């Protein structure tokens, strides 16, 4: 008997039209849990580094997390994995909503897509009935329109849909896959879906998902709900309002945007506007949001209302959450929030990443100002900034003219344009656009996270700790009192880190000490890897400060739901195994130490020697060699002998290495 998971994957070959229901090995669940972990295992086995992102042999995997479909609150994430057209590394993007639980109820843990369809199709999964259906009539339709048309066609409003828009159809490198309530937006997975001519996947399921120890699981869930309720009513004191809550930053509910607008950079990650925020702006922005926002809503089985239904007169409605509220407004250097709300909606209908897109648009206009892109390149572009952003957006998703170049993202576009455009590629890491943050002095914790994070997105590795010290000692003492989240054995050290932070001599980059920085970053990262295998939303777990889920209650919840024997050590080992497997895939694909660094101007004051030492120590802490490659010893200890053998076979590791 399989619990929490269904024990079946759907294998779809779009080239041949073959559909198979394949039972999975329960051993894999013990080793990797599910979601990202088992996705990585499949990619390791079946997508060798010679396979190009747009090759029919590349896989596109839609996975539920292990706990999706059980009563565990917030376990609703779909983990989509493939090889990114932009970074040429493993891509994994997560999305909330309702799709993953529906897939479980249909009787599957994953849908694995291979091949390439000759014509546009969509997949219809209705319990045991699975069909590849014609989608030529959906070509060119927006992500939302596609979902609505499919639901109408199938005559069932409860069907859950993942769809791409025009951007994915045209293989824009930052195209997203959209579903009701969210976007899998990072790393160009929409382009992979487009390359396979798969317009959408519709799912409806009416089967049971079993859990192993029902009564205990429901008690544990009630405990989680009680804590969520407590945190909803009691924002954390002493931190900016936007960081004081659980869920993703509550930007659909809160109007205080001081933190983002003054500490993040505007334009193409260029300008700080430290005096931007005032009462007048707050009033204007609050009015704009309240006019547009029809309701606050949630993902499946989660009470936290992170998202908003947004509708402006004359514009089609869409669903928004988090920082994408601000990304377009800030990139365009426009003071009017309504502009951002409008264009973000257009971009979501096209199916575009709300983090990368505004950066690409601002980058193009920067090149124009510098004379690198000319009037000829941009013939027909309007004069006003709002018009320009929309004009460029329309060209990118259609790959028209300059849009065709920009559709590959900043890194590739800069190299294609040449004429010094490379110098304007100043905010990418591993070829991927980053959130626009440019600060003063190297922060050792963030330095390691930006450098080594393999999701290549800071929000997918950070969490757990405040981003600045509490000013008063009493606040720090209060904070550590109920800080139960710390892994066993680290309590003293991490509490000391908070208690001392803010005293004289605790300035960046030398605070915290290298060993503490390594341990903190490892903890932050491991919690994300746990969530991504379970399908639990980071907003309830790895992302906020003092979240409902942590390393001490998760093992029991996993055990009650799945029947797996689990404790803190085992869970940590599984997450570490998954983390090393993702790295192994990327090492085979050419990931190098040189790629692991934040942009030069990320901080004004840098400490090259100290940073090098930080990275070196962190690699050692992770069990990686000086090149950042997991050693044979590390791999074999995690049961990844097949990885070390492949590394040796390919000459990446020497046979004697790490075996001492």
């Amino acid at each position, binding site marked *: 008997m399989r619990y929490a998971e269904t024990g079946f994957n759907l294998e779809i070959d779009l080239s041949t039209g073959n559909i198979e229901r394949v039972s999975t090995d329960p051993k894999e669940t013990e080793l990797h849990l599910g979601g990202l972990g088992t996705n990585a295992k499949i990619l390791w086995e079946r997508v060798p580094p010679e396979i190009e992102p747009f090759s029919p042999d590349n896989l596109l995997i839609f996975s539920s997390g292990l706990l999706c479909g059980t009563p565990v609150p917030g376990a609703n994430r779909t983990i989509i994995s493939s090889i990114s057209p932009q970074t040429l590394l493993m891509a994994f993007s997560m999305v909330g909503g309702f799709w993953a*639980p529906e897939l479980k109820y249909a009787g599957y843990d994953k849908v694995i897509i291979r091949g390439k369809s000759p014509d546009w199709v969509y997949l219809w999964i209705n319990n045991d009935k699975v069909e590849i259906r014609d989608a030529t009539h959906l070509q060119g339709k927006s992500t939302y329109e596609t979902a609505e048309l499919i639901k109408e066609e199938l005559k069932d409003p409860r069907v859950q849909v993942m769809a791409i828009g025009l951007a994915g159809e045209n293989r824009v490198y930052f195209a997203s896959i959209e579903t009701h*309530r969210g976007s899998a937006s990072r790393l160009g997975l929409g382009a992979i879906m487009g390359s396979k001519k798969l317009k959408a996947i519709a799912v409806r399921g009416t089967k049971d*998902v079993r859990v192993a120890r*029902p009564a205990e699981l*429901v008690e544990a869930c*009630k405990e989680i709900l009680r804590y969520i309720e407590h945190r909803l009513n009691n924002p954390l004191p002493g931190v900016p309002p936007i960081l004081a809550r659980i869920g993703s930053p509550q930007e659909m509910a809160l109007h205080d945007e001081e933190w983002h607008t003054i500490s993040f950079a505007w334009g193409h990650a260029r300008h700080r506007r430290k005096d931007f925020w005032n009462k007048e702006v707050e009033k204007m922005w609050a009015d704009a949001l309240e006019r547009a926002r029809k309701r606050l809503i949630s993902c499946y089985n989660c*009470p936290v209302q992170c998202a908003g239904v947004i509708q402006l007169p004359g514009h089609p409605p*869409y669903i928004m959450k988090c920082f994408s509220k601000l990304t377009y407004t800030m990139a365009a250097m426009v003071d009017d929030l309504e502009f951002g709300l409008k264009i973000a909606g257009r971009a979501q209908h096209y199916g575009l990443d709300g983090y990368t897109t505004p950066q690409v648009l601002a980058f193009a206009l920067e090149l124009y100002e510098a004379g690198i892109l000319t009037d000829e390149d941009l013939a027909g572009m309007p004069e006003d900034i709002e018009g320009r952003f929309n004009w460029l957006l329309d060209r990118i998703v259609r790959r028209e003219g300059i849009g065709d170049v920009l559709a590959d993202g900043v890194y590739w576009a800069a190299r294609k344009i040449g004429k010094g455009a490379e110098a304007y590629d100043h905010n990418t890491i591993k070829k991927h656009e980053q959130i626009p943050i440019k600060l003063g002095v190297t922060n050792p914790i963030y330095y390691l996270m930006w450098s080594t994070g393999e999701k290549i997105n800071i929000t997918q590795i950070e969490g757990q700790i405040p981003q600045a010290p509490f000013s008063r000692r009493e606040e720090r003492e209060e904070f550590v009192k109920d800080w139960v989240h710390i892994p066993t054995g680290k309590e003293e050290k991490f509490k000391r880190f908070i208690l001392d932070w803010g005293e004289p001599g605790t300035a960046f980059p030398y605070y915290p000490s290298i060993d503490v920085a390594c341990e903190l970053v490892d903890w932050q990262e491991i919690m994300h890897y746990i969530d991504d295998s379970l399908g639990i939303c980071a907003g309830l777990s790895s992302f906020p400060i003092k979240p409902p889920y942590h390393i001490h209650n998760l093992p029991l919840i996993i055990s009650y739901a799945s029947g797996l024997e689990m404790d803190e050590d085992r869970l940590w080992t599984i997450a570490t195994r998954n983390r090393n497997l993702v790295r192994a895939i990327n090492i085979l694909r050419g990931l190098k130490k040189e790629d692991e660094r934040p942009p030069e101007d990320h901080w004004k004051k840098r400490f090259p020697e100290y940073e090098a030492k930080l990275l070196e120590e962190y690699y050692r802490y992770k069990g990686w060699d000086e090149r950042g490659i997991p050693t044979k010893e590390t791999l074999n200890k995690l049961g990844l002998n097949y990885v070390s053998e492949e590394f040796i076979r390919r000459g990446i590791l020497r046979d004697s290495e790490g075996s001492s």
Partner: protein
Amino acid sequence: MAMNEKGEKKKRKVKVIKIDVNKCNGCRACEVICSAFHSQTKYGTNNPSRSRIQVYFDPLKNIYVPVYASEYTPAECAGRNKYIMDGKEYIECAFCGASCPSRDLFKEPDSKLPLKCDMCEEEPPLQEPMCVQWCLNKALTYEEREEEIEEETELKELETGLESLIDRYGRQKLMETLARMAQKE
């Protein structure tokens, strides 16, 4: 205690779930816990399509309507209702809780037997039905009040189920099937 003879008045506890559609955040936690609570092994399985509450929602129209499964009915209404409120058009029968032949709602997915909300009745009684307990946004709240009613016999769950099978297959066929099954045992 009141007499149970026909025509006698009896005091009855009326259980009310108040549904504030403006507070519904569309998370369907009510469906999750309802289906788990009514699982054959309590909480042993989850399957929202077995839930006796269903949230009808259409986010782009800003429509959220939690509906409870009410009576089984063998025939659909002579005419259907379509509500338009504040300019928003709701699907036909959006507010109806009947397990009815016109739609798939409120039927066991395998057997198609009708589902009906029982307010999570059990011994000892719960303070509130599970859906209310799991609705942290308070779109669902619970009230009790006393009412005087005429006593009447209510169909038990089994009778309701059998009645629906009779409607589907005919009394004769059902009796034959039961007889045949009994012989096998």
